[in-house]
């Protein structure tokens, strides 16, 4: 248990920024919801830690937990709290940032937020520069399917960004 606690602490320390950014992208830039989701990801990480068998790198393993938690999160919240994310609203963070960086965040999360849930997760892995093979392992899709999917998502993003 003590070993697990040490591993968990180091995972939390190392991957927290990565998970937070993924969750923020998934939640269309809403920092409060993203932090809530990050907490859920790490709760699941702790619960799954006992079953970790070194079959994948910790990073891939955390990615999988993050992706699965994201996909379950909105559904679970909808059922528990009648939670809804306004599809037209891409609320950007109330963080202490300069106007220009806030604007940049808005552009980024606005673009990602217009994609479907699964596409949103895939493109964030592309932006994180994960290899196709890693993305296919995380998503459980064939590498070919991932390539086709990414190409389509890029086309969609281009269209979204052109339309402002």
């Amino acid at each position: 248990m003590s070993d697990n606690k040490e591993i968990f602490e180091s995972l939390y320390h190392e991957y927290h920024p990565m998970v937070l950014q993924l969750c923020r992208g998934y939640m269309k830039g809403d920092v409060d919801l993203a932090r809530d989701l990050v907490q859920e990801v790490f709760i699941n990480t702790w619960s799954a830690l006992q079953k970790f068998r070194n079959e994948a790198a910790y990073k891939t393993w955390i990615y999988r937990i993050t992706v699965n938690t994201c996909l379950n999160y909105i559904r679970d919240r909808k059922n528990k709290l009648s939670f809804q994310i306004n599809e037209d609203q891409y609320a950007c963070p109330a963080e202490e940032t300069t106007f220009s960086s806030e604007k940049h965040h808005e552009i980024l999360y606005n673009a990602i937020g217009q994609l479907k849930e699964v596409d949103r997760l895939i493109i964030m892995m592309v932006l994180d520069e994960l290899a196709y093979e890693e993305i296919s392992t995380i998503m459980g899709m064939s590498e070919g399917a991932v390539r086709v999917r990414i190409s389509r998502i890029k086309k969609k993003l281009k269209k979204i960004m052109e339309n402002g």
Partner: protein
Amino acid sequence: MDNQIETLKNLWENSRSKESGDSANTGHIIKMAKEKMKRTRRMQLDTILILSITLAIIALYFTQVVQLNETLSRIGAVLMTGGLAVRILIDCYSIYLSSKLDPADSAFNSNRATLVYHRFRKLINGPVTVVILLLYSVGFYMLTPLFYRIFNLPVLILIDASYGVIAFIFIGYIRRTIRQEMSILREIMQIEEELSDPQPYLDKEID
């Protein structure tokens, strides 16, 4: 197109928070994780416990308090206890299925396992529960001659009528649960569709 992706990549890199996870939070998260596991386990076991106590009380009543001399009463008692026993076994299997859900599996496998679990829950919370309730009710009313020997007519009418009201309320609860399960299933199936290999004709979806 690559320029736009590069722009997004730069924005992505710049938007990453520089703060690493505060180790002080881990104790709180571990505590929450343990509480969540305990709460989930208790919820699952509570149902089984309540059903088991009910089954034990009914079984004791039929074996120790009253004598089931008529075939009708015996069949009634078997239908009531049998239905409850089946439901307890199904709930145990449901716990086994939920223990197979692995949040660290690939998105497709994890979603598929969740789909299997919720399909099973829809089945047990819907048709299976309705059949069990029906058999339980038939069994209950088959015991009316037995109750008639024990209670006077006004009490018997009160018992039968109360049972009818409780069953009616329970049916409403079943309907609500099925609706919830259906809504969850629809969303899981939609994700499954999104996770499936893309088809060429779907290119039109971006227009």
